[in-house]
């Protein structure tokens, strides 16, 4: 993160940024005039200007910001809960091989089961509230985090733990001074994956049932045959995902600042 400032100074990077901006303009132009050129009607692919108008309209009349906020809130809560649960289970199973052995078939089954299929079930349980959406999100976010933490605990060099113990470290000290910090790089790799999945969890919950949130707007727009509104909701959903991912990357940059530059991901 802190590198971006110095990177922007380099001429090669400036050229790349200019290229990236140019590509964006070309993309918007293609979207605006491309469909017309090929005779694709606006109800199939609405041009970007129409989507923009629809966006302004939905902002003014359809509480777009409110619905986006609801979805974002559910994504945020689901993500945080799923991550905490994943970290907790990852460490617990990592430290107890026998627990992992006993539970692994169930974990595997739950991991393979398509989590979105639970959405109707959760709606039966909790009704048209925010809880089913958050719960699907928690379930989806949980696995990549847990698996990465579990792997990190297992991969830790036992000699490092022995070193700490030889300094008379107790169990808690071994955890906070060794195991927890050692698990952070894989944890953040898991968080990046989880951040991209979190929106899906909430969206599916909203599509299945409810009368608020972007998923509801999406279903409503589909019913009305309003393609431009569908595009607007897709873009808003993507923006929520990008924001979450950006937050994860920003925190990662601060926490894992000690990693050599080559070990860090650019995006």
């Amino acid at each position: 993160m802190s590198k971006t400032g110095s990177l922007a100074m380099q001429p090669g990077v400036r050229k790349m940024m200019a290229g990236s901006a140019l590509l964006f303009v070309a993309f918007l132009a293609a979207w605006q005039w491309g469909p017309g050129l090929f005779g694709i009607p606006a109800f199939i692919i609405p041009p970007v200007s129409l989507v923009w108008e629809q966006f302004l309209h939905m902002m003014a009349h359809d509480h777009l910001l409110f619905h986006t906020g609801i979805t974002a809130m559910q994504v945020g809560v689901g993500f945080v809960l799923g991550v905490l649960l994943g970290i907790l289970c990852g460490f617990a199973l990592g430290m107890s091989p026998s627990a992992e052995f006993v539970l692994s078939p169930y974990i595997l089954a739950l991991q393979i089961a398509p989590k979105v299929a639970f959405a109707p079930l959760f709606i039966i349980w909790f009704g048209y509230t925010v809880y089913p959406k958050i719960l699907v999100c928690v379930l989806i976010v949980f696995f990549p985090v847990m698996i990465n933490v579990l792997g990190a605990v297992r991969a830790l060099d036992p000699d490092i733990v022995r070193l700490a113990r030889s300094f008379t470290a107790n169990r808690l000290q071994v955890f906070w001074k060794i195991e927890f910090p050692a698990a952070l790089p894989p944890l953040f790799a898991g968080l990046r994956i989880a951040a991209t999945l979190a929106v899906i969890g909430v969206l599916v919950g909203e599509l299945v049932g409810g009368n608020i949130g972007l998923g509801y707007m999406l279903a409503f727009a589909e019913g009305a045959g309003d393609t431009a509104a569908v595009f607007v909701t897709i873009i808003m959903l993507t923006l929520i995902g990008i924001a979450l991912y950006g937050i994860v990357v920003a925190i990662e940059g601060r926490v894992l600042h000690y990693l050599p530059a080559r070990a860090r991901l650019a995006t």
Partner: protein
Amino acid sequence: MAATTRLEFRDVTKRFANPRQGGFVVAVEGVSLAIADGEVVSLIGPSGCGKSTLLNMGSGLDPASSGEVRVDGELVTKPNKHVAFMLQKDLLLPWRTIVENVELGQEIQRVAGGERRKRALDLLAKCRLPDFAHHYPHQLSGGMRQRAALARTLAVDPTVLLMDEPFSALDAQTKMVLQQDLGRTLADTGKTALLITHDLVEAVAMSDRILVMSQRPGRIIEEIVVEISDRDNPMRRRQHPKVATYIVQLMNLLQIEQAAA
């Protein structure tokens, strides 16, 4: 020796359960040794003879199956503040700066922050790393990292240092420099040390005495007193004409020529 005994093994045996074949594997058997205050003793023997097992028992990480291990007269049953160990791997934590790594042991033993930092910086200066205190381990060379590991070991002010092939992962020149540093530091601080090594010259250059172990089950088969002066200067000791005599003696004891024939 009139000096106080720092580290003592009394008839120590270590058996490990052998889950595959059942029964036990005897790693070391009936080992007795005593290391006096300020003495540096090397332990040499074929691979798998239980040298590292002895060290683990000395540090209190593994209990002896029978016999007693005592440090400063106290029976060792768990890790304690008298002993610190150092391995071939530097085991520096990548998320801590060098000075923070050196502080690890003190931090665990709850030494106050200011004192901890002062002592760590002091030791880094002694280990000739003062400019690297705030670097991360990946920014240092292997030799420098091992020096930082030595500083970390000394930071808890142990009376006994247990070292398991501390320099075996380093290149030949770096190794000699670090042996020199260690020799001087041990002499300056008057620490007692048990050094496990595969390097015969290192054993002769660094120590007051050399203990030779047999094949598994490991027993101590010979004790050689190194009668060369300048124990604080391994570099000069290396060049002493008597070194070759000791090496030959060690080679015979370890049956190295027979193994090659």
